[in-house]
């Protein structure tokens, strides 16, 4: 139909209706631009513009890498669990979940870039991979996982796209045969996806867990820890996004699902509690090599962070989710999810800081900081890492990019799983 037939008022109405969205996207683009600029500035001057030094040589960027790897867990769990254990309840949020996973792991991958001293040499990873390095394993699995989730998303929306005749369907049709193949693929995917997820988090854990040089990390429990914390944050993210989408009227599902997810989240948190306790019993055992690091965590300079993580970050959500009436209230569940995500973030923060901020050999004057200190010693036994504005901007930029990708995706992709037909 031709434009003239549309009443001018309608158009204006439409635009105003869309203004929040326009503003939102504009905002994201702006933040991305800032992030990009910060990254270029960092690239030109070197990582000296970050808060990192030879003492704490990994910071914000790796932290967010770990964090987002974790966040990506939720999607495939929900999706494949839904399939494998036939939890039909998940159906309405499956698409959302896998999309969230895809975006999360994409961001995780991106966060590696600004952490590199020579990002332009990224290709070296593929030109000269060294397969004894957990980092290589991780990069491989991250890529695989990313592809898988992307494909998974497509698999779920393909049919609807095809119906709309969108080219994104890549010519696949909606014939019974096509649909049948889709079903088969979905089941197959479910079988790979779950182990893939487990692997992803285990390997990411090993990046740290295999380092004998870092007593605090060197532990077999690292992988289970990562998996569980991933489950917590991943699921929490799905819950949050789902509720937001429902609020925006882009998704329909009942509160019983919310309650169910909440319950699940509660269980994950419980497991995480157990693992943490288990680890502390072994490691903080007086005289154990790691005792010092754990002491810092329990009563030392990291105590506030740690106890925040345990008490507030995990404790509060657990309590909320344990109380049935609250669990039935989406608002409370949302709150619990949000806090849990924060909790896991702090959990990761502690892991990095406490793992690195003390020189491995505690004799004065310590390790050379790596940056001219002007007048004053250029050695340190410990380092209190504080991210700089540059790091915050870069992170913000990447986050904005993620938000944009997600927003656009939900705009162009049909998120609502059609009621079974």
């Amino acid at each position: 139909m031709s434009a003239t037939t549309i009443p001018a008022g309608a158009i204006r109405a439409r635009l105003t209706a869309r203004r929040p969205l326009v503003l939102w996207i504009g905002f994201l683009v702006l933040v991305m631009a800032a992030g990009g600029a910060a990254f270029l500035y960092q690239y030109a001057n070197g990582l000296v513009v970050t808060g990192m030094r030879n003492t704490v040589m990994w910071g914000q960027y790796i932290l967010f890498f770990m964090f987002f790897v974790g966040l990506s867990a939720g999607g495939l769990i929900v999706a494949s669990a839904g399939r494998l254990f036939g939890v039909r309840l998940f159906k309405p949020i499956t698409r959302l979940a896998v999309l969230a996973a895809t975006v999360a792991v994409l961001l995780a991958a991106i966060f590696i870039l600004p952490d590199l001293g020579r990002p332009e040499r990224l290709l070296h990873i593929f030109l000269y991979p060294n397969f004894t390095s957990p980092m290589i394993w991780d990069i491989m699995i991250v890529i695989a996982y990313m592809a898988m989730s992307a494909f998974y998303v497509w698999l779920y929306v393909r049919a609807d796209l095809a119906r709309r005749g969108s080219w994104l369907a890549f010519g696949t049709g909606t014939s019974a045969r096509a649909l049948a193949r889709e079903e088969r693929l979905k089941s197959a995917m479910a079988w790979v996806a779950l182990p893939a997820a487990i692997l992803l988090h285990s390997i990411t854990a090993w990046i740290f867990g295999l380092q004998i040089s870092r007593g605090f990390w060197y532990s077999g429990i690292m992988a289970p820890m990562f998996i569980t914390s991933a489950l917590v944050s991943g699921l929490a993210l799905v819950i949050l996004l789902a509720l937001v989408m429902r609020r925006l009227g882009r998704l329909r599902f009942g509160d019983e699902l919310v309650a169910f997810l909440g319950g699940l989240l509660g269980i994950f948190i419980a497991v995480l509690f157990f693992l943490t306790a288990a680890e502390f019993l072994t490691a903080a055992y007086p005289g154990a090599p790691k005792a010092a690091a754990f002491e810092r965590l329990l009563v030392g300079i990291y105590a506030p962070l740690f106890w925040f993580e345990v008490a507030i970050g995990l404790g509060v959500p657990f309590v909320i989710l344990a109380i049935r009436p609250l669990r039935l209230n989406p608002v409370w569940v949302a709150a619990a999810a949000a806090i849990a995500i924060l909790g896991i973030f702090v959990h990761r923060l502690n892991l990095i800081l406490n793992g690195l901020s003390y020189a491995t050999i505690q004799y004065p004057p310590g390790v050379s900081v790596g940056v001219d200190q002007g007048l004053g010693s250029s050695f340190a036994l410990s380092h209190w890492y504080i991210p700089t504005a540059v790091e915050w901007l870069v992170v913000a930029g990447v986050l904005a990019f993620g938000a944009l990708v997600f927003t656009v995706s939900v705009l162009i992709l049909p998120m609502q799983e059609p009621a079974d037909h």
Partner: protein
Amino acid sequence: MPLDRRTFLKGSAAVAGAVAGTALPVIDRPVRAGRDYDVAKSLPVDRVVRTTCSPNCTGSCGQLAFVRDGIIVKIQQAADYPDTVYNPRGCMKGLSYINHIYGEDRIMTPLIRTGERGSGEFREATWDEVLDRVASEFRRIGEAYGWDSIHVFGQVPGSGYIQKGANYRASALLGMTHGTSFDFNGDLPMGMPITFGVQNSDHEAKDWANSRFLLVVGANPVETRIPDVHFLFDAVERGARMVVIDPVFSGTASKADAHIRIRPGTDAALGLALVHQILVDGLADLDFMRTYTDASLLVRTDTGRRLRQADLLGDDAEDRFVVWDEAARAPITIGTEKLGMPPGVVAALDGTFEVTLHDGTQVTVTPGFALVRAEVGRWTPEAAEAVTEIPAETIVRLARAYASEKPAAIFMGGGAFHWYHGDLVGRAFGLLATITGNIGRSGGGFSVYVGQYKVRVIVAPWWNPGGRKLKVVPSIYFLRGRTETMHPAVPYPEAGFKALFCSFSNMFIQSPDINRLHETLRELEFIVVADNQMTDTVAWADVVLPATTWYEKLDLTATPLHPFLQLQQAAIPPVGESRSELEMWREIVRRIDPGLAAEYFDVTEDDAIRMILEAGADPGGPTEGITLEQLREGPVRLNVPDPDIPFLRQIRDLEPFPPRSLPASLEATAAFLPTRRIEFYKEEDRFRELGETVPTYRDAYDDRVHDPAEWPFVLLSSHSKWRIHSTYSNNPWLAEIHGGRATVLIHPADAAERGIGEGDPIEMFNTRGSLVALAQLSDAARPGTATLAEGWWTRYFRSGKGVNELTSSVVNPIHEVHFVPNMWAPSTGWKDCRVQIRRAPEGVS
């Protein structure tokens, strides 16, 4: 030069940085790293020049300067000593000197003061302008007040006979008074001239390795003799024991078998107690005392002077002394031409005897040693414990350990005798070494390696042009004016001092009692400073002459620690507009008296070196058979015995003491020992007036100025491992290690008492001055002692000029009994200093 990231970024590709990735590795090539290493070699250089590191340090270490594109890119030890045990020498400071040649503080052009004195405000000037200025001011002052009112001060000549010698040469020609360094630096161990008649005594460093017992007294070789300290470890590896006497847990203490903490300033009491115990145990070598010392020479109890043949026979044999022959039960006169005793004579060391003088009067006489023993008798281990705070039984064990090992070496440092009564410390330990027969023995001896004082060649033709005599005034008199007790032979200027030419020294912070010094400076009409670094002394100059470093000029050097003569050789042309001292003086003298200049300054460094080598070339001379050409190739051993040990001739051939101390004449120093033997009894009047005829102990002088009750801390301004005095204070590499801030080491208990925490700014003060530095708390400190290592530039303090605001410049009259510059002259007592400490008042911190 590989293209760097910035330039790359400008090159458009910026935004696509990551995308362009693949292309990028190219940008770093040629990379000196990684795979290339399998074939990589050092980057090529233009040349490598052999020279000698020459701050005012005892090291005198051969260095190689690696020059690339006319720039020194590395300094590393030459390690080319023919006596390979001396390789490689050197220390971290010498290796990092590159940062001073090219560093921010390097003076590049002549400067003329524009602001207040000390403000450090200057304008750049041309050489002609400053040279004319110096010449005209000197002429004006010289003619108005006499040339001797111009004081030329330069440090430790041993580390640069030619360039530092230029100061002397010019002074001699123009009649300016030249200052002293060895005594002014407090490094002159007055116990040596008093006891042995020499400026100092030191075994060459490699001889330490031959020792069976090492007694390190107030020295910190681990930090202040870095190139040679390994010889101590060599001895230890061969089974020797090492004992360190130090109030503070020093680096050397950490290597010792036993570290004995003594109360500062009381070493004389320890030395006497050790001798006491050795006599008690019967471990003393009394024949050695008879043979080589004045022990048996009779002293008149009426006058306190020695009995002479003249007293007995009425002849004029003032130089023949008398011993009591136990065998003949009669006095026997002996001469000074030879040590030892006439055959058959058993000289008494004890008892009193009646002798009849030529005029018939009866006098009671007693061997000098009886008087020494009487004093030593008072110093039981218990008596010493009361003074030194060392447990008596520790003293007993130490005495037995030392006396039962032969050879045993005493290694004394500034800490022990940088005291008003430091001469008494030297006399006590001289007695200890002698009474155990350790003198003149390889692996034994009583050595002091304090200061690069040693003139080991015949410098007269260069320092005393045309045989002109130098007017040398101990710089302590420049600082504080003449004393009533000043020796009449000191050529103190009639009109006093009106101008100063300071070179090779950071005099205005390195001198004692600098607030008093700055009073003196205020009176001066003209101050010239030659240096290559923007020091605190330079800041006070009216005219600044930019000097070359020792990598930019030619000189001849030697040190007490090893017997090798070496050259400083220019590796690069002078940096900026800097010039050598010889050049400066040539130009100044030419402007004052062209005739003199033409006759005496129209010479090159080569000529000067040849003069010196030739002067010592005669048989037995120090430079016999040494040529400039040889020296250009590397170090050449002086013509000295191997190992080079003091008093060999005296001990082996019974030659009379003292051996000659260059550059003084033998006559000059022989006057210190009328008996021509090692003297433990001093008969000169002032020794008697002050009751110091025999080795004894006196409380620290500053205790009289600052009542210990009110001023509880003894301030030890030791020498820092990180600097040579103030040189290297501003070295960025070293500052990265030690932190670059002046710190005071005190005991945690003292700190707690005053509410002082680690790193707090603390005020340290006494009646002479005050400063603010940061507290460093450690059990290494002794309660009641504070250590603030000398040499920090003013800029590294929170406030105050530096540690020498607190130190004292008082003169000990004993040091004025005779006068030979740098040999018997007032020696500064740096460590004889009391202070109070408190948390710094707010504001300064």
